């Protein structure tokens, strides 16, 4: 037999071990040590226990917990309220004077405040809620200054309402109230229910009607779906809901070819693209004598209708 365990040399001085076998207790202890769970418990659980137990015992008292919380809060506040972190002034850029005043009046009550506690997102929402402000960028500049950079909305059109005139930007958002129409003669006027929602379309129609610019008085929204282009001398162009710009272009071509608006035409009805319709102008003299009007108007209108057919061919 070959032994796997090295032979234990017997030393003369010491008494030899009688029994190499481990006792039952030693055997069990060794097995316990070799149990992975027990080993892990001892290596992780015991140090954890040693750390957690005193801490828990210390924190078990309510007064100590409160004292620690108070001390921590105090320290935090001390750091936050150092003058380096305080915001005291507002600087508004990119805004006209009245808008700047309004923004300043909105923001200033929140100051002075620590830059840790200042809620820039909320302030920005407040500033952006001003009608004349398109976008607002807020940041804190070194030196404790709250810098507000504002892009204002540009008035693009006027909306006539019962209360008065309003300026709208190109997206239809309100900019400000206009007290005097003469103050902005460059802007066209729109009116009618639902006009506010269709400002981009109105701008497109007005752009298409640029050759008639001198005569355009404004646009009226009809039935919240289509526009009437109102000219002076009581003339109107009734535009379709779909592709009103194309209809305007057709009318302008017609006008150029046949001098449409030079005649006694009242409404030009383009609502049905297949069948443009002209309505005579209810002239006071003609209206007084329908028979005469019948006599006078026909060749006028007949030659025109021939032109209309010709124009609508291509």
């Amino acid at each position, binding site marked *: 037999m070959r*032994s796997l365990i090295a032979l234990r040399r017997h030393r003369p001085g010491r008494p030899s071990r009688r029994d190499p076998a481990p006792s039952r207790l030693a055997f069990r202890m060794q097995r316990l040590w070799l149990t992975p769970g027990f080993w892990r418990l001892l290596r992780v659980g015991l140090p954890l226990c040693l750390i957690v137990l005193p801490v828990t015992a210390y924190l078990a008292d309510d007064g100590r917990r409160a004292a620690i919380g108070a001390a921590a809060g105090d320290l935090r506040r001390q750091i936050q309220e150092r003058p380096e972190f305080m915001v005291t002034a507002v600087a508004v850029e990119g805004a006209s004077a009245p808008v700047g005043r309004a923004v300043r009046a909105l923001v200033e009550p929140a100051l002075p405040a620590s830059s840790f506690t200042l809620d820039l997102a909320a302030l920005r929402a407040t500033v952006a809620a001003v009608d004349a402000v398109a976008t607002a960028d807020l940041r804190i500049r070194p030196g404790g200054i709250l810098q507000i950079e504002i892009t204002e909305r540009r008035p693009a059109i006027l909306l006539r309402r019962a209360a008065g005139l309003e300026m709208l930007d190109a997206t239809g958002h309100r900019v400000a109230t206009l007290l005097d129409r003469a103050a902005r003669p460059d802007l066209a006027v729109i009116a009618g229910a639902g006009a506010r929602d269709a400002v981009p379309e109105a701008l497109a129609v007005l752009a298409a009607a640029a050759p008639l610019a001198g005569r355009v008085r404004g646009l009226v929204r009809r039935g919240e779906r289509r526009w009437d282009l109102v000219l002076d001398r009581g003339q109107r162009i009734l535009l379709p809901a779909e592709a009103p710009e194309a209809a305007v272009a057709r009318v302008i071509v017609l006008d150029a070819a046949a001098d449409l608006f030079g005649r006694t035409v009242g409404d030009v009805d383009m609502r049905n693209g297949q069948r443009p319709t002209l309505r005579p102008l209810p002239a006071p003299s003609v209206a007084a004598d329908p028979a005469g009007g019948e006599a006078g108007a026909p060749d006028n209108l007949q030659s025109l209708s021939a032109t209309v057919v010709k124009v609508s061919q291509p």
Partner: protein
Amino acid sequence: MTDLYQSQRAMRNLRRAALQRGVVAILDVGSSKIACLVLRFDGEAAGAREDGQAPLAGQSAFRVIGAATTRSRGVRFGEIDAIAETERAIRTAVQAAQKMAQTRVDHVIACLSGARPRSYGLAGEIALADGQVGEQDVSRVLAACDVPDFGQGREALHAHPVNFAIDHRTGFGDPRGHVGNRLAADMHLLTIDTAAVQNLAYCIKRCDLELAGIASSAYVSGLASLVEDEQELGAACIDMGGGATGISIFIKKHMIFAESVRLGGDHVTGDIAKGLQVPMATAERIKTYHGGVQATGMDDREMIEIGADCGDWEKDRRRVSRTELIGIIRPRVEEVLEEVRTILDAAGFDHLPSQQIVLTGGASQLPGLDGLAARILGQTVRLGRPLRVQGLPQAATGAAFSSTVGLCLFAAHPQDEWWDFAIPAERYPARSLRRAMKWFKDNW
């Protein structure tokens, strides 16, 4: 019978649990040494073949991570004699192996070499109900084997189905799915003394371990030291241990016979101690260093210092020639081999197609033993060593460890035994669901 059947089933479940946990201990309780190995199973080995057998005879599935041997105490003739002593020796071995493996083991598969094993060949036959062999038919034919009366105090240790026959065709390893009218089975039953098993189980229980399997040492050393074609063509493995010599006969990869002679290497040592009047430890040392069975002229001139520590100069300076030593050893070895010869003759070993004899075990390392054995047992004798398993220390690869290594193979891939098959439906309690299922199948 049913008791052991149940306990064997329970041990199989424990073995499965141990393999799932991945660590199992192997305990070879011998008369001269107690060896303990700790095996780690890493799941199924890669590249298992179609028949479920992994490469390298399935031993690539496990690895030896702890090994220890200790001098056996309290074991005589391969049976436990002094329970407390043996328990201590087992504790020593298990503790050292656990320490080497750095892990705790809970399940133990043990083997024992003595306990008077006796072999029985059993035969059973049934008629096939539906013309095709199913799972239940295999169970039924195994249950139909007529069990011999092996007497009080004996229990079945192994019950291997060796052969199945369907009608006139025989030699089936796995009869399931075959078509026929009658199914017959041959079973090899190995019984041992109940007391020996109970003592071993008690010792292991006292060490806080659970017995997950038990095997005969003769069988497992055959598994380890016979090569595949020897097992297939017929061979006998003779495991010459300290207190008992185990004999197992294999054919067609099944053990068909096992027996044990209650003589071994310790008796040779005892003879030397008596003949030369030296202590057993000295006698053991003289046997291992100078022993032999074949005297030559040279041996007359080789003088061996016996030595003693009594203070008497004449006694302390004694010398014997090696021839004298061989003269003491050889008769005892001849006696052992003649006992083996008698048993092999009684078992009908000379009817096997191949009659290879493999000598293994610690006592087979005596120089010149193969020559002596060839004279007594026949010409086809070789010395066998256990096959190599992964992680086994070099010191544990000798012939003395063939049953230990065989037990590893047994733990990794046990052969299907009677209790591994399903219980036949007839044996189930009257109200069981499976019985109801069978009634439905039979009647519709």
